[in-house]
């Protein structure tokens, strides 16, 4: 840099960086500094509450009063509570039916979008819309669609088609309300499944299909022996996510029915909320939340083993 001055000093000392720069260039410190914000936040607001939640489940804490250890009393109390068991049943039922619906329809939509069609990117953008919009807001739209007096579905079926003579009572009794919630959940879940599976479909090499066509395969055989096996790894991941987040769903049920009529549509999450926050029984709410953990662990292990097969965590690209 000093080339313009008269005497060129060839042996110019490289400026010694300040101690701060050197500290940040020291790898162990740099690693520590880089990991600190993420790990710190996750430890304080995720790991610690998780432990605290499990501790709370074994205490008698309420809002404004620190609990003391009471052992399994909360769980014994819950085991005799028919509303708790009905929420467990509905959580499992809701997850099972909604997952089957989402994946059936989502896979179908992905296969449709994988064809050569005009306006493909526009269609893809439209399809994702239900997933982008805040769940509660689309749930309110569904609430209005399911309204007892002014439902557009009832209007269509009764006044236009004339198939029935009475309006549907979607949310007024237990089973119709349960199915209505499942339908709304499927509606919201299809886009995510379809778009992620579409990405999986696009990684399958067309030459496999060409080879299969030359061998005289039928459409079903191509799906069964090429598409499905190659889609399986991504399907397993997406399904784990979907199962976990459907099982712990809260927003949809809270927005549309708040657990009613007569507690018949409570999921475990909504019941935990109702008992824990407005009801003030923190410990009981925490116990219900902790009761969800075994199901989640099961789903996570499923994910881990499905993923471990691909050895992707090692950071090697083997696909």
């Amino acid at each position, binding site marked *: 840099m000093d080339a313009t001055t008269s005497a060129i000093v060839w042996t110019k000392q490289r400026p010694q960086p300040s101690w701060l720069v050197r500290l940040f260039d020291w790898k162990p410190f*740099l690693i520590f500094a880089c990991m600190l914000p993420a790990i710190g936040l996750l430890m304080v607001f995720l790991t610690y509450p998780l432990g605290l939640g499990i501790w709370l489940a074994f205490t008698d804490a309420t809002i404004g009063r620190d609990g003391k250890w009471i052992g399994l009393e909360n769980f014994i109390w819950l085991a005799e509570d028919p509303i708790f068991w009905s929420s467990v049943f509905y959580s499992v039922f809701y997850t099972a039916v909604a997952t089957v619906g989402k994946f059936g329809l989502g896979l179908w939509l992905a296969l449709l979008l994988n064809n050569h069609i005009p306006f493909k990117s526009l269609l893809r953008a439209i399809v994702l819309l239900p997933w982008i919009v805040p769940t509660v807001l689309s749930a*309110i739209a569904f609430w*209005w669609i399911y309204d007892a007096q002014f439902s557009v579905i009832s209007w269509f079926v009764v006044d236009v088609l004339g198939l029935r003579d009475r309006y549907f009572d979607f949310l007024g009794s237990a089973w119709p309300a349960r199915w209505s919630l499942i339908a709304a959940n499927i509606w919201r879940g299809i886009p995510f499944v379809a778009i992620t599976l579409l990405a999986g479909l696009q990684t399958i090499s067309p030459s496999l299909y060409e080879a299969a066509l030359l061998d005289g395969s039928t459409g079903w055989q191509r799906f069964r022996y090429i598409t499905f096996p190659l889609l399986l790894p991504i399907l397993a991941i997406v399904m784990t996510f979907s199962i976990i987040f459907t099982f712990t769903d809260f927003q949809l049920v809270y927005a549309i029915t708040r657990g009613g009529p007569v507690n018949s549509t409570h999921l475990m999450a909504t019941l935990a909320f109702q008992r824990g926050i407005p009801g003030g029984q923190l410990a009981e709410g925490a116990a219900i939340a902790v009761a969800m953990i075994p199901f989640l662990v099961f789903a996570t292990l499923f994910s881990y083993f499905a993923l471990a097969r691909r050895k992707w965590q090692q950071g090697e690209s083997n696909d």
Partner: protein
Amino acid sequence: MSDAAAAAAPARKESATVTPELMSWDTRTRRVVTIYVPLACFVFILLFPFYWMTITAFKPNHELYNLRDYNPLWISSPTLDHINHLLFNTAYPSWLMTTMGIAIGSTFLSLFAATLAAYAIQRLRFKGSQYVGLAIYLAYLVPPSILFIPLALMVFKLGLFDSPFALILTYPTFLIPFCTWLLIGYFKSIPYELEECALIDGATRLQILTKITLPLATPGLISAGIFSFTLSWNEFIYALAFISSSEKKTVPVAILTELVTGDVYQWGALMAGSLLGSLPVAIFYSFFVDYYVSSLTGAVKE
């Protein structure tokens, strides 16, 4: 060329049977029935609630509650009453601002933490970094539904109850894992040689991060940012549990708890609120749809 084709076509029709044409007609119908009709049904079902939301927001009440005399699928006299009511008789503008502030704050916080963590895991490569990566991934699988009760207690003890900071600090719990995972994938795609060159030229690690890796990972940062913004905009359960005073609520919570009063639901205002609450994310999304899709699928494919 076209002449030759035109000449060839009738000739072939005479010599061969009509089957080829029938086949082509058949496949075309088949295509319509197996692809376009189901696709149209999907698009209709996926979009109908939005159409219904929009149309309700602009419908006067007497049309809204009279299905016999007015066609519910159309508006005969559109009105802005509901939106007017929402903007001037409720705290809607302040809810929007709060939500926006919280979403931006938590997005920046998580992007900052996630970028550094992803860089350390993917580029600094310390012993056990893969396990840290896996642990962060597993953190994503812990749903807010099992955390909100202990978090509510913590927030209360920390004196953050009813303050937007409670949400800005807790949203990163589900944003950081996702962003870190996404950015690890992006950093992986940047050639390591670039960093080695910079090291030889005497750059420090931080200079490498700010001058080489981050500019190259901009698409990844944008995807992660958009994703975080939408997720925090849509978050519900923490906002419901940690905020109690009316004017500090976020849009999804406020619409559900403040606009639903008594037994008579203001459907017009509810739908107008839902529409306006959905618009920012929808507009945001429409600008960056490709980044969004790539982040969604990239994270799953990784």
